[in-house]
């Protein structure tokens, strides 16, 4: 991929980083407040993002839209399953509730200057590695 191709992705990421910081979705406090149902803020963000996404995806599918290169857009379905989603999801949720950041915000908070997040990132990389090691022994 050429440098100029990458720039457009960099810009999308830049907007994403700004929006997540300014909406405070990267805030440990906001996640705590969300899990205690003490504010609508986070539910509003996720809800509107999903509604926007559903409408957009439906428009893309119904109009058989093409992507930037003129190729038909195909959105892959997620693999069927139950255990991996409920167990993996719960483990991630425990981490999300503890350190208040999901993978996107881990990177965004690096830029925002939160030193402690470096340790979270190291843990997350090791956790990813451990999953790769034990993948075939886990129920999916």
């Amino acid at each position, binding site marked *: 991929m050429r440098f100029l191709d990458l720039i457009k992705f*960099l810009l999308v990421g830049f907007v*994403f980083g700004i929006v997540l910081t300014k909406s405070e979705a990267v805030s440990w406090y906001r996640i705590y407040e969300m899990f205690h149902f003490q504010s609508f803020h986070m539910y509003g963000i996720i809800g509107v993002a999903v509604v926007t996404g559903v409408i957009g995806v439906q428009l893309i599918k119904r109009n058989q839209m093409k992507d930037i290169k003129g190729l038909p857009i195909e959105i892959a379905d997620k693999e069927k399953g139950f255990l991996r989603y409920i167990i993996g*999801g719960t483990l991630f949720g425990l981490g999300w509730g503890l*350190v208040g950041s999901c993978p996107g915000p881990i*990177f965004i908070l690096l830029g925002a200057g939160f030193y402690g997040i470096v340790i979270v990132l190291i843990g997350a990389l090791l956790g990813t590695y451990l999953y790769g090691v034990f993948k075939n022994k886990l129920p999916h």
Partner: protein
Amino acid sequence: MYSFYGTWPWYISGFLIGAVMLTLIFFGKQFGMSSNLRTLCTMAGAGKNVDFFKFDWREQKWNLAVVLGAILGGFAAVHFLSDGSGVHLNPKTVEQLAAMHIEAPNGKLGPDSLFSWEAVKTPKTVLILFFGGLLIGFGTRYAGGCTSGHAISGLSNLQKPSLIAVVGFFIGGLIMAHFLLPLIF
């Protein structure tokens, strides 16, 4: 009521996050942040011993560019787009946090007692941050996605597996916030 330099309203923020996801679809890709953790493992050489990491990480360059942009976006938002008026919590939340010896935000995104240089010097904080990260890395890969891949991308495409994963996110988060955090702090 809202200011550009203060907290952005949920309806604008949610719409923009949806737009980011749709833009990536238009660029021929799928929005998902946790796969970058796998790519970073592969770049560090994890593919030598573990099959899961045997793939050409160059295919994921675009996503690493998104991550780099996100880091720069976080920097820009904090340094140029904030007046320090943000993070107005429910007063009840602030009270609960005080009982756990966690200070009120006063405009900060994260508590100093968890993320500051001083806090990182204590073994307990390091353990909390490390185990939190471990759960995030392991859990997201096991579930095949995180908030962006499942909650935003997956639900937008009406995927049942993503709904199951999001239910899991909340089971874990609720257990942590209600039962475990008071024991930990």
